[in-house]
């Protein structure tokens, strides 16, 4: 039996998972999904910034469009730190395509118009 705190939403449910990956303590189905994923292949959404050439901003906020495998987080940061974007940028613009062949893009999370 493992105990986990669900991080899917701010509610923070206290989950219990048995050896057969049966989950209890979850308020919603996402809690069960989280617990199973956390015990088999934990993932996290990565948020950071990249450099940008812009008249109004020094940094562009970005995120992984979907949660990345946890073990790739620091490696992804190394790639993110190398990127420089040019304004204008819109939310969702791809900053790094398919990072480490995960099928997940790093995307802009803010409109920077000039």
């Amino acid at each position: 039996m493992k105990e986990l705190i669900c991080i899917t939403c701010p509610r923070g449910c206290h989950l219990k998972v048995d050896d057969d990956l049966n989950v209890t303590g979850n308020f919603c189905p996402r809690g069960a999904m989280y617990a199973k994923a956390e015990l088999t292949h934990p993932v996290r959404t990565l948020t950071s910034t990249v450099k940008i050439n812009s008249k109004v901003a020094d940094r562009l906020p970005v995120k992984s469009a979907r949660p990345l495998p946890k073990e790739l987080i620091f490696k992804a940061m190394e790639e993110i730190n190398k990127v420089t974007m040019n304004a204008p940028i819109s939310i969702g613009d791809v900053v790094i395509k398919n990072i480490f062949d995960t099928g997940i893009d790093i995307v802009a999370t803010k409109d920077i118009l000039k």
Partner: protein
Amino acid sequence: MKDIIIIGAGVVGSLLARKLSSYNLDVLVLDKENDVGNVTSMANSAIVHSGYDPIPGSLKAKLNVEGNRLFPNLCKELDVSFSQIGSLTVAIFDEQLPMLEELANRSKENGVEVKLLSKEEVLKMEPNLTSEVKGALLAPSAGIVNPFTLVVHAMENAVDNGVKLCLGEEVTSIKDNGDFFSVITKKNTYEAKVVIDAAGVYSDKIHSMIEKIDYEVKPRKGEYYVLDHYGKMLVNHTIFPLPSEKGKGILVSPTTSGNFIVGPSSEWVDDKEDLSTDKPTLVNVKAQAQMMVPNIPFNEVIRTFSGLRPTPSTHDFILGTAKSNNRFILASGIESPGLASSPAIANYLVDNFVSKVIKLTPKKDFNPYVRKRFVPSKMTSKERNELIKAHPEYGKIICNCEKVSLGEILDEFSRSVPPHTIKAVKKRTRAGFGKCQGGFCQPLVLALIASNYKMKKTDVLLDKDGSYIAHYLTKEAK
């Protein structure tokens, strides 16, 4: 070769420089700090005492009373906030009433107008005082001043009139060459015919660079609370307890910016750089203050700080010359009431000692006024509108808590003692002085400093060398 070097750009050094700038002299001011008025002159009660308290006949008594009289005009010329709100020294116990009378007599001896008030009279003036109050001594001439701008504007006026100021110059030794001195700093060597030691807590150390001295200047720390301006008048006067051998005691006072100050403690420290605060001392300050003003809203505290009094072992200001050379002039051990006395100290030293060793010819074009500053928050709507129309940068507010405009900050950069650090901007404009303590405006002020001096944002300092704010850039190649 300079005519005069002043060591120390505190309130005494700055007012001396200003006074000397009214004569045809080549004057240089050196200070180890990155801004003027950065040690004792920055961290004190900001009170222009009336002079009721010093021992009659002492330099402190004479110069405090004289200084107090000079303040109204001085602050007009230098565009400094000053308000003669008067002080109340309160007796809380019956046995203190005779001491109050004794103090009233001492005041008269010092030439200070005072008035003894009954319990009813004092409570009418100050309803937030403890109902235990038994009586008080009112000194109407006591005032409050903005000590930060007093020093900055005095030095600015001095520089406008020809004085040279070098900051970040720590004096390490002085050589007496007979008819001139070599003043050696960590960076340079300067020469001057006359040296004035106005080095505050270090004044004994500077003096001892040219001869053996028989006194010391020990730092005596005072810790304070600062309360926000919270829309109510806690007290209308500066409230003192009866003085003791430890000094004037813990006061409660409004400041010129509408805040309230509570303190100072009084503790001897060995380290002349020790500006730390500690909990037991502050708890004691609180308790002492509450004896006079029970309902101080300590939840409105926005900052605690401490300052160092340069306390001389002689118990009086040390004003005069070195024994070995009368061209080495002393303004040493200027503790309280140093701020109140400072303009009189400058006059006293120039008239009695500088004039003896160097010829003083008045400068024809000396201008006692600083260039006018615009402060939108103190203007009427109409004036404010006209100002913003002519100078739009006064419309944009940078510091929300204190309503400081971009125009006010930019104006300081254009002056002759411009700010180089976050703290120097804060002292001049009050940006970052409010309840958020720069939480919102500090990055903006930092960017303004960086752009004005064309420096990297990561190199901007809070205050001293090494006091970086946000020293690293992200995403930089390793």
